[in-house]
């Protein structure tokens, strides 16, 4: 009798408790977007930005608020997606230097970063501003770049502690690249290191220990250029800068050498088209890896990097993953810069391989030209095989790269440096074999150094990929689709028609109500406001022609979508 009573009480108690536990489980299910519920995502907020330019800067979420930076001339909007009726908290319109409107090319867009209860805004026309996120009031304001020289700010700054790190854009205008540090609370500039020039400018000192022999020498940033050509050498730090807390180093890629025509700049053109590891205190370089010496196709290496910890060839290691515009995924040792792997993730014919011992690519002689003339069907084509910011998922061990599979015909011609004007020296036609896909989402198995699967896209991908903890990968396409694929298999689970192409990275965040949201800023600049004539095959650096067949977007300008679960 007594054991039965005890069991009955347990059952009754469980019956009382379990129903209470059930809502908790449901609560837990609504904390993240998973393959199970992704199909139920629906837009909770839609906002038209009114700008016809390409929307490259991803929104930033902090404290449940979403901060959206529209293309130049910028508006910075602070939105609360949890209150769909009156989402706009404040709007900040920085004073715009109109000259930068003609320099909004090539992936440069400015950006905003939220860190340490501050908002840091880098505008395309070179203004660095710190704002109060709650009210949008300006804390400090500083000039970082000069659009009169063609110099712009390419991406959002990196904030680590009380330091702010930022690089410039403007390789296509012959601007000398640099990375700089500011004091985050006050905006006081701390140091600036250049990509070309004497060692003192570049930050090469006694601590510099490059892994490969060719990167050792004095004043190589001058010596590997024709006299004074390094002053218009390019190499801008246009992509995101990566911070490694373990090693205490900054990693960043440097952009392509200027001008595009390699015949105008014989030599290895250090330190463009490579990867730097720098000391954040002083900016002095710790090591450098030259990815494309002499940069014969002017692709550069200023793409986003990632630090991962996984088992490489049997033992666990920290690896720096660098997907390069030349179509290869480089795996490097972040401490020394040693190259461990460099396998292609896209069809590549400009190189036949990479000599890992000395870090130099093995160029395909048929795709090299060091004189004026035309090179046909060079793969990958400009601006490179990496279409947008990749993302890594620890759960799957896959690195998701939005890729552009275009190849190019490039014709090198003379170029004259005129301050503030395009300094390219080449004409480009982009295309690919008929019927072949122009883009793909490549899921790169880092440990195995090969692609696990790929989702082919009819058009090159321009925006970044977002790998969520819930096992999904989100990315936007140029034909106006926001897609969610299973992170393991690549199977398409959800698709939403944005009405205009997406060339920025989707952002996932938890709102003030603790619920998960997904935001994407769509707008690819193909509306009538931008005045590109696709009858010229080289329009928009060849991209307009590479996108032929893409119907005009439904939306005239940019649109911000915020999705939530029901």
């Amino acid at each position: 009798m007594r054991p039965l009573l005890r069991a009955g009480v347990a059952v009754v108690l469980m019956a009382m408790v379990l129903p209470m536990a059930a809502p908790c489980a449901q609560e837990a299910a609504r904390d993240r977007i998973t393959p199970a519920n992704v199909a139920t995502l629906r837009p909770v907020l839609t906002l038209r930005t009114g700008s016809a330019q390409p929307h490259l800067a991803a929104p930033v979420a902090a404290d449940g608020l979403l901060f959206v930076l529209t293309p130049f001339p910028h508006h910075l909007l602070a939105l609360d997606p949890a209150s769909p009726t009156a989402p706009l908290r404040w709007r900040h319109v920085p004073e715009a230097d109109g000259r930068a409107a003609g320099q909004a090319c090539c992936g440069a867009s400015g950006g905003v970063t939220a860190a340490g209860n501050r908002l840091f805004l880098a505008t395309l026309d070179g203004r660095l501003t710190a704002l109060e996120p709650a009210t949008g009031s300006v804390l400090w304001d500083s000039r970082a770049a000069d659009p009169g020289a063609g110099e712009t700010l390419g991406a959002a700054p990196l904030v680590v502690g009380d330091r702010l790190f930022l690089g410039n854009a403007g390789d296509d205008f012959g601007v000398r690249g640099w990375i700089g540090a500011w004091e985050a609370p006050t905006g006081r500039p701390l140091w600036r290191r250049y990509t070309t020039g004497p060692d003192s400018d570049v930050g090469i000192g006694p601590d510099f220990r490059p892994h490969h022999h060719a990167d050792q020498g004095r004043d190589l940033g001058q010596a590997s250029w024709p006299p004074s050509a390094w002053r218009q050498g390019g190499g801008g730090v246009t992509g995101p800068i990566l911070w490694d807390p373990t090693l205490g180093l900054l990693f960043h890629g440097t952009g392509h050498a200027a001008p595009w025509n390699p015949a105008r700049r014989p030599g290895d053109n250090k330190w463009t088209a490579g990867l730097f590891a720098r000391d954040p205190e002083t900016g002095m370089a710790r090591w450098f890896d030259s990815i494309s010496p002499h940069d014969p196709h002017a692709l550069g290496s200023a793409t986003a990097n990632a630090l991962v910890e996984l088992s490489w060839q049997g033992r666990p290691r920290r690896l720096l993953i660098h997907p390069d515009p030349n179509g290869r995924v480089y795996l490097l040792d972040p401490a020394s810069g040693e190259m461990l792997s460099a396998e292609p993730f896209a069809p590549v014919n400009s190189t036949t391989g990479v000599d890992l011992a000395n870090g130099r690519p093995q160029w395909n002689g048929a795709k090299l030209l060091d004189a004026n003339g035309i090179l046909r069907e060079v793969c990958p084509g400009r601006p490179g095989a990496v279409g947008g910011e990749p993302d890594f998922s620890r759960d799957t061990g896959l690195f998701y790269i939005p890729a552009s599979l275009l190849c190019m015909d490039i014709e090198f011609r003379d170029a004259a440096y005129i301050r503030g004007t395009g300094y390219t020296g080449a004409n480009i036609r982009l295309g690919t074999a008929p019927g072949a896909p122009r883009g793909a989402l490549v899921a790169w198995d880092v440990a195995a150094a090969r692609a696990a699967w790929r989702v082919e896209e009819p058009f090159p991908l321009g925006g970044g990929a977002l790998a969520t903890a819930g096992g999904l990968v989100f990315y936007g396409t140029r034909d106006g689709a926001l897609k969610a694929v299973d992170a393991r298999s690549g199977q398409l689970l959800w698709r939403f028609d944005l009405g205009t192409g997406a060339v920025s990275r989707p952002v996932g965040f938890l709102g003030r109500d603790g619920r998960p949201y997904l935001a994407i800023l769509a707008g690819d600049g193909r509306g009538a406001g931008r005045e590109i004539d696709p009858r010229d095959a080289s329009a928009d650096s060849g991209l307009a022609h590479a996108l032929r067949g893409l119907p005009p977007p439904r939306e005239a300008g940019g649109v911000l979508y915020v999705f939530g679960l029901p």
Partner: protein
Amino acid sequence: MKPWHAALLSLLLLAGCKRETRQARLDPAVAEAMDSVATLPIGINGRPPPVLLAMGEPYRSNAYQLSQGKRLYAWFNCQGCHTDGGGGSAPALMDGWWRYGPDAVSIFLSIRDGRPNGMPAFRERLTTEQIWQLTGYLQSLGATSSTAATPGRNDSMQTRPGENRVPSMSRLPSPHEGGP
């Protein structure tokens, strides 16, 4: 040859053909006078310098001047932003749509003085004559009909049909589809 044949030929000599004259050096007084453009206050349109009309508007109708404009278009990095007329970080020049008007004065001013949204000023970098040559060439680029003076294709990569194939330009097939 009978005398009247010679007389006829000499008469034709007087007629000349303005389309084909090549003038290597401009008279300095004329060159200076070509800068005197009277602008409307809004910075768009205005009166071209009278000396230009007196010369018969050579920059629009003379084959040599148009070919010089085409050469300057490449030499002064116009292709860096405007590509071959299709645009990129700068507006297209071959679609016949002109932000500041299609007339020669507006285009001249855009090049000489720059425009607010990123067009640099070239007054310090080009002579006035060269700016007029560029103006004439740009007008032929955005034109809907071609004349005998319009330049042909360049001996370089074919990104679009030559200017003298306007207005029969249609969407080019991809080079990888067997197009040009």
